[in-house]
């Protein structure tokens, strides 16, 4: 099948989600939630000492979550996501502008398979993967 009942077709681009500026303060909240002691999410001096730059590094799962948000906004809510598999390609830093997007690659009834990505400034890939959502 190349087109779903709701008019989704293979090759369709998913509506993009833009994160205008990754917030260092939110990394601190997530570090507390996850009990993640890694200082690269908290202290720019540590990042600098490691030769990774001067801005704190976003948690990888946060980057994955932006893609989840893009998918669930399109599919109709958090209950529509069935599977997401991603590869982490590069670090995301405080202040980065990110764009999440994807392309429909397969349709089986209401089950839609997509290639997904997250890119810095819309062009530099930081995460890539595949997803399955249910969409009426």
């Amino acid at each position, binding site marked *: 099948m190349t087109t779903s009942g709701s008019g989704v077709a293979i090759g369709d681009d998913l509506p993009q989600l833009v994160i205008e500026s990754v917030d260092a303060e939110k990394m601190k*909240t997530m570090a507390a939630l996850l009990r993640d002691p890694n200082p690269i999410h908290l202290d720019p001096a540590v990042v600098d000492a490691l030769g990774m730059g001067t801005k704190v590094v976003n948690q990888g799962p946060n980057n994955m979550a932006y893609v*989840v948000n893009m998918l669930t906004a399109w599919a109709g809510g958090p209950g529509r996501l069935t599977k997401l*598999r991603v590869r*982490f390609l590069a670090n995301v830093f405080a202040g980065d502008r990110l764009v999440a997007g994807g392309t429909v690659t397969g349709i089986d009834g209401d089950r839609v398979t997509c290639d997904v990505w997250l890119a810095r400034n819309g062009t530099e890939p930081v995460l890539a993967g595949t997803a399955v959502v249910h969409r009426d």
Partner: protein
Amino acid sequence: MAIVALETLESLVGQPFPGGTFTVEPYQNWLTNDVVLAPQRDDDLAHPMYCYYAALAGMGISLDELFALAHATADDGVMFGEAEIELVAPMRVGVTYTVRGTFTSVVRKEGKKAGVFDIVAFALELVDPTGAVAGISTNSFVFPRRNE
């Protein structure tokens, strides 16, 4: 970190995690939505990333302990490899999930720039109070090794 005998690492495959339980508390879900810029909701649907968060929080060992099993520490430049969440059912706020899982694979590779590195993968299931698997979180970490 020094190169570890591959046979030593491969002995991890099939080794179970201690496991545990995790309940998505309403404040945790609210804060998570706030952090990752997801809309807040009036129903009990948790952010789908709780398939990952709950699995790692309930696996029964810390990340530092997991790294130690792979003969590494967080200071060794351990990196995320891949992550997969499979939601058999939506994650729900207030539900207590039992977490169980095992190490699933160890692969050694060598790159021109990266040198020797090991990819250690594990899978964790989230079991709801009825005994049904609600989600599966599969992850791999990359452990750079260096010759000494």
